[in-house]
C-alpha cells in the first residue's frame, strides 16, 4: 500500500495528480488555441492535443490505483480510495469518448472553435474534483467548475438559437440549484461544524441528525437532484439536451450525470449513512418519479434526441433505485450501472450525431427507417444500444439492471424492484420501435445518412463501446467482482461476503 499524507502540500499534489494533469492539458490547449484558431485543421489539432493530455492523467490515475494509495491519517479534502479512482476512470472514459465523437461532429457542423476542447477538459477536471471530493466545499467548487464550462459548451453552436436557449436555461436553473446546494452545505456545516464527509460521518455516528442538519441534507439533495436530472428537478434536461450540440448532450448525459451520482453516493454513504431513515424515503420517491415520468413521456416523443433525453431521466431513476439500499451492493450496483449506462449512451449519442444535421432535432423514427439495408453495421450498433438501454440479457445494460435488482431485492424492497421492472417494460415501448424502424421498415428513397460519412474516430468509439457492451454483457464476472470490491473501499460497514451485506 502507498500511504500519502494529505496534510502536506506534496501529499496533496500527489493525490490530485490526475486532476492537475487534466487542468494542465486544458491550459496547454488554450495556449495552442491562442495561435491556431482559424481553420478546421486547427480545431482538429486542438482536439488531438486535448486527447493527448488525457493520457498522462490516465497514467497517473493508474499508478495511484495500482499502487493502492490511501490516506495516512483521516482523509482530508480529497478521498483516496478505490471508489474515487473508479469514478475518475469513468469520467476520463466519458471525456475521451466525447472528444473522439466531437472531431467528426464539429467538421460536419462547420464549427471552427478550438476552445471547445479546453472547455471540455475544464469540465472534466471539475467532475473529477466533484466525484473525488472528501470535503463539501471541494465538492461545491468542482461542481461549479464543471457547471460553468458545460453552460458554455451547451451554447457552443453560436449560429443556432436552440443552442443559445439551451445554454440560458441550463445556466439559470443550474445557478439556481447550486445556490440550494450551497445553502445545504452551509446548514450542514452549521449542524456538525465539519465540512469533511468522514468528519460529518463521525460527528453524526449513531446520533439523530439535528433539524438544521436534516434541512441541510434536504437542500443538498435538491441541488444534487438537479444535477442528475431526477424528477421533479428534471424539467430543464429535455430542452437543454435537445438544444445543445449532440456530443455535448452526450457529455451531459454521461459525464455530468455520472459525476453527480458518484458524488451523491459518497455523500450519502460516507457522510450520513446512519441517517438513512431520513434520506431513503426521499431517494425512493425521486427514483419512482423519475422512472415513471421519464419512461412515460419518452413514449410520446417523435424526435430521437428528446427521447434519449427522457430515457436518461428514467436511467437516473434506475440509478437512484440502485442508490437506495445504502449497502455495499448498492454502491457496487451504482458503479456497474453507471459504467454500462455511460458506454451505451456514448454510443447512442455518437450514432445520433451521424444521423442528423444542425443539432439533430429533426431525427425521428422515419429518418432511421430501413437503416439496415444501407448501413448494416450502424443498424446493428443502434440495436445493441437500444437493447442495452432496455436492459436486455446479453448486453452490459442487463448486467447493470441485474445488479440494481439484486441490491434492492437483497434489501427487502420488492415493490421498488417491481416498479423498476414495470417501467423498464414501458421503455420497451420506445426502444423497440427504433429497432423495428431500422430493420423492419423499408427505406425511403434517399440515404438515411444524407451522404454524411461516419468519420474514423467516431466509428472507433462506437465500435469499441458496442464490443465492450456485448463482451461484458456475456462475461461480466470480472467487472462485477471488482465493482463490489471498489464499493467495499467506500462502505466501511457491512459483512465481507456478498450475502452478509444485509445492512
Amino acid at each position, binding site marked *: 500500500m502507498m500511504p500519502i499524507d494529505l496534510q502536506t502540500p506534496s501529499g496533496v499534489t500527489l493525490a490530485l495528480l490526475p486532476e492537475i494533469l487534466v487542468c494542465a492539458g486544458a491550459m496547454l490547449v488554450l495556449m495552442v488555441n491562442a495561435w491556431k484558431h482559424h481553420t478546421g485543421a486547427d480545431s482538429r489539432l486542438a482536439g488531438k492535443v486535448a486527447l493527448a493530455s488525457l493520457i498522462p492523467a490516465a497514467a497517473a490515475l493508474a499508478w495511484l490505483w495500482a499502487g493502492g494509495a490511501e490516506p495516512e491519517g483521516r482523509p482530508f479534502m480529497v478521498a483516496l480510495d478505490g471508489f474515487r479512482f473508479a469514478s475518475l476512470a469513468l469520467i476520463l472514459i466519458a471525456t475521451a469518448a466525447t472528444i473522439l465523437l466531437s472531431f467528426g461532429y464539429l467538421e460536419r457542423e462547420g464549427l471552427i472553435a478550438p476552445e471547445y476542447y479546453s472547455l471540455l477538459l475544464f469540465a472534466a477536471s471539475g467532475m473529477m474534483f466533484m466525484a473525488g471530493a472528501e470535503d463539501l466545499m471541494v465538492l461545491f467548487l468542482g461542481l461549479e467548475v464543471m457547471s460553468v464550462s458545460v453552460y458554455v459548451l451547451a451554447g457552443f453552436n453560436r449560429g443556432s438559437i436552440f443552442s443559445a436557449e439551451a445554454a440560458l436555461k441550463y445556466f439559470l436553473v443550474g445557478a439556481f440549484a447550486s445556490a440550494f446546494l450551497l445553502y445545504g452545505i452551509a446548514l450542514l456545516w452549521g449542524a456538525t461544524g465539519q465540512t469533511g464527509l468522514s468528519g460529518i460521518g463521525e460527528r453524526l455516528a449513531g446520533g439523530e441528525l439535528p433539524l438544521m442538519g436534516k434541512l441541510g441534507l434536504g437542500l443538498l439533495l435538491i441541488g444534487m437532484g438537479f444535477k442528475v436530472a431526477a424528477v421533479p428537478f428534471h424539467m430543464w434536461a429535455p430542452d437543454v439536451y435537445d438544444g445543445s450540440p449532440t456530443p455535448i448532450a452526450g457529455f451531459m448525459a454521461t459525464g455530468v450525470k455520472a459525476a453527480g451520482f458518484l458524488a451523491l453516493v459518497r455523500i450519502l454513504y460516507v457522510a450520513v449513512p446512519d441517517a438513512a431513515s431520513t434520506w431513503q424515503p426521499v431517494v425512493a420517491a425521486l427514483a419512482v418519479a423519475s422512472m415513471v415520468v421519464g419512461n412515460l413521456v419518452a413514449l410520446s416523443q417523435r424526435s430521437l434526441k428528446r427521447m434519449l433525453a427522457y430515457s436518461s431521466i428514467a436511467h437516473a431513476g434506475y440509478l437512484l433505485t440502485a442508490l437506495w439500499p445504502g449497502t455495499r451492493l448498492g454502491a457496487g450496483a451504482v458503479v456497474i450501472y453507471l459504467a454500462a449506462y455511460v458506454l451505451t449512451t456514448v454510443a447512442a449519442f455518437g450514432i445520433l450525431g451521424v444521423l442528423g444535421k444542425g443539432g439533430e432535432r429533426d431525427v425521428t423514427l422515419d429518418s432511421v427507417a430501413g437503416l439496415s439495408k444501407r448501413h448494416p453495421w450502424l443498424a446493428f450498433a443502434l440495436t445493441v444500444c437500444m*437493447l442495452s438501454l432496455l436492459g*436486455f*440479457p*446479453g448486453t452490459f445494460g*442487463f448486467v447493470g439492471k*441485474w445488479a440494481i*435488482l*439484486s441490491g434492492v*431485492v*437483497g434489501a427487502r424492497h*420488492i415493490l421498488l*424492484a*417491481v416498479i423498476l*421492472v*414495470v417501467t*423498464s*417494460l414501458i421503455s*420497451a*415501448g420506445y426502444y*423497440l*420501435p427504433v429497432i*423495428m424502424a431500422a*430493420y*423492419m*421498415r423499408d427505406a425511403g428513397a434517399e440515404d438515411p445518412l444524407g451522404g454524411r460519412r461516419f468519420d474514423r474516430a467516431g466509428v472507433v468509439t462506437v465500435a469499441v463501446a458496442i464490443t465492450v457492451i456485448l463482451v461484458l454483457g456475456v*462475461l*461480466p*464476472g470480472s467487472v*462485477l*467482482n471488482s465493482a*463490489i470490491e471498489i464499493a467495499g473501499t467506500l462502505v466501511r460497514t457491512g459483512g465481507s461476503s*456478498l*450475502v452478509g451485506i444485509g445492512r
Partner: protein
Amino acid sequence: MTAFLASIGYNGWILHVLLALPLIGVVPLVLAPAERAKRIALAVTLVEFILSVGLWWSVETISGTLQLTSSTPWIAAWGISYAVGIDGISLMMVLLTTLLMPLCVLGSWNYIGQKERGYYAMLLTLITGVIGVFVATDLFLFYVFWEVMLIPMYFIIGIWGGKNRLYAAIKFFIFTMAGSLLMLVAILALAWSVAAKTGTLSFDYTHLLANAGAAKALAPWLFGAFALAFAIKVPIFPFHTWLPDAHVEAPTAGSVLLAAVLLKMGTYGFLRFAVPFFPSVAASPFVTNLMLVLAVVGIVYGALVAMVQPDIKKLVAYSSVSHLGFVMLGIWAATVQSVQGAIMVMIGHGLSTGALFFLVGMLYERRHTREISAYGGIAKVVPVFSLLFGIVALSSIGLPGLNGFVGEFLVLLGSFGVHPVSTGIATTGVIFAAAYLLWAMQRILFNKLDKRENEALTDLSGRELAVMLPLILGIVWLGLYPKPVLLKIQPAAFKYVESVRGGPAALDLVQRPQEPGR
C-alpha cells in the same frame, strides 16, 4: 447403442454441443453468399438433429431426476453458473425442437425471398435459445435464454412477416417481456430469501428447489409472478391475444416453431419451476380452481372462437389455445395420468399443429391468401395435399389411433377423478374441435371447385413431401405405439405429482390401494 454413446463420452459434451453448434453455424452462414445460406442452415440443423437423437438412449429417465448435469461458474460473485441438465420432459422438448428445425428450414426453402442469410441466422439462434430454455438448470441462465429467444422470433415475425407484422411483432415481444420481467424479480427474491436462510447465494435449480420453503412469506407473490410469465407464454385464456396476431403475420417456419415449441416453454415452466417451487400455493384451492376454470374456458373458448375465424392461420392459432388448455387441465389435475397426458399433448400438438402450419404455408405459397373462403373443392386438384391435410386435421381433432387422442385421453382420464365437472365440460371441447376443423376442411378441400385460380393449384413437390413425411410418420407412430415415449416421460410426471401432492402419499390418491388393473 448406449454402449457406443458411452464410448464416445456422449453424455459429457452433447448438451453443450447442442447449444453451441447453431451459433457456430451462424458464422459460415452469414459469410456465405445468399443462395447458399439455406443449404448451410439445413446442414447445421440436420447435424443438430442427428446428434440429438442419441439423447433418447443416453438419457435414462427412470429416476425422474436431472441427468447429464454439468455446471461451471459463470458469475461467481452472484452464485450464477452455466448449469445444464435434462430430464424426461425437457428431453422430449429438445427432440421435438431438433426434429422440427430441419423441417422448418426445408419448409421455408422458397418461401423466403429477401435477406435469406439474416433469416436462417435468426432460425439458428432461435434453436440455441429454445434448447437453452429446456436444458438450463440455473435460474439466471434459464431467464437469459428465455429472453434471448425473444429476439430471433421478434425479427422473424417483424422482418419476414405479413402485412401488419410490426404490430404483431411488438405485441409478441411486449406480452412475453411483461411476464418475464416480473419473473426476473421473483427469481431474485427467491434466490435472496434462500440465500438469507442457507448463507450461500446460488441460482442452482436443485439448491433453490430444496430450500424454496425459505420464501414462505413471499410465496404467493412469487408464484403469481412465475405463473403470470408462463401463463402469457402458454397462452392461458386472458393472455392469449398475442398468439393469433403473431401466427397470422409470421412466415410459415415462424408459425410452426411458435406453435410447436415456443408455447411449450410456458407449460414446461409450470412443470419445472412455478409449481415445484411453491407447491403449497399451487395446491391451494383458490389457485387450483382458478387455473382449472381458465384451462376449461381456454379449451371451450379457443374452440368456439376458432370456429368463426375467416383466416385459416388464426383458426389454427385459436386451436392451439384450445389444445394447450388441455395441457393446463392435465397439469393442474396433478394425477400421474393427467400430467403424463399433458406432456403427451405438448408433444402431439407440436407435431400436428406444426404439420398443419406447414400445409397452410404451402397453400399460402401457391395462392398468397389465408382466407378460407378463397378456396373450395381443391381435393380434386391436389389429392396428395388433401390426404395429408385430412390426416393432420384428424390427428388434431383427436381421432383415436392418431397422436392427438393418446394425450387428450390421458389428460381427461387423469383429471376426471379429481375434477369430474370441469373435465366433463372440457370433454365437450373434443366436439367443438371436430366442428371447427371439419368445417374448415370442408370449405377448403370439398364443396364446389368454383374458383378458377384453384384449378391451377399444383400438388405437393418432392421437397414439400419430405417436410411432411417425418411429421405424418410421427403422428401415426405416436398414435399407435406411444408406449416408449410414455415410459420416458412417466417418471418426470410422477415426480411432479409427488412434489405437488406432497410426498409419496401422492401414490394412493393417484390410484386405488388394490393392485393396478390392466
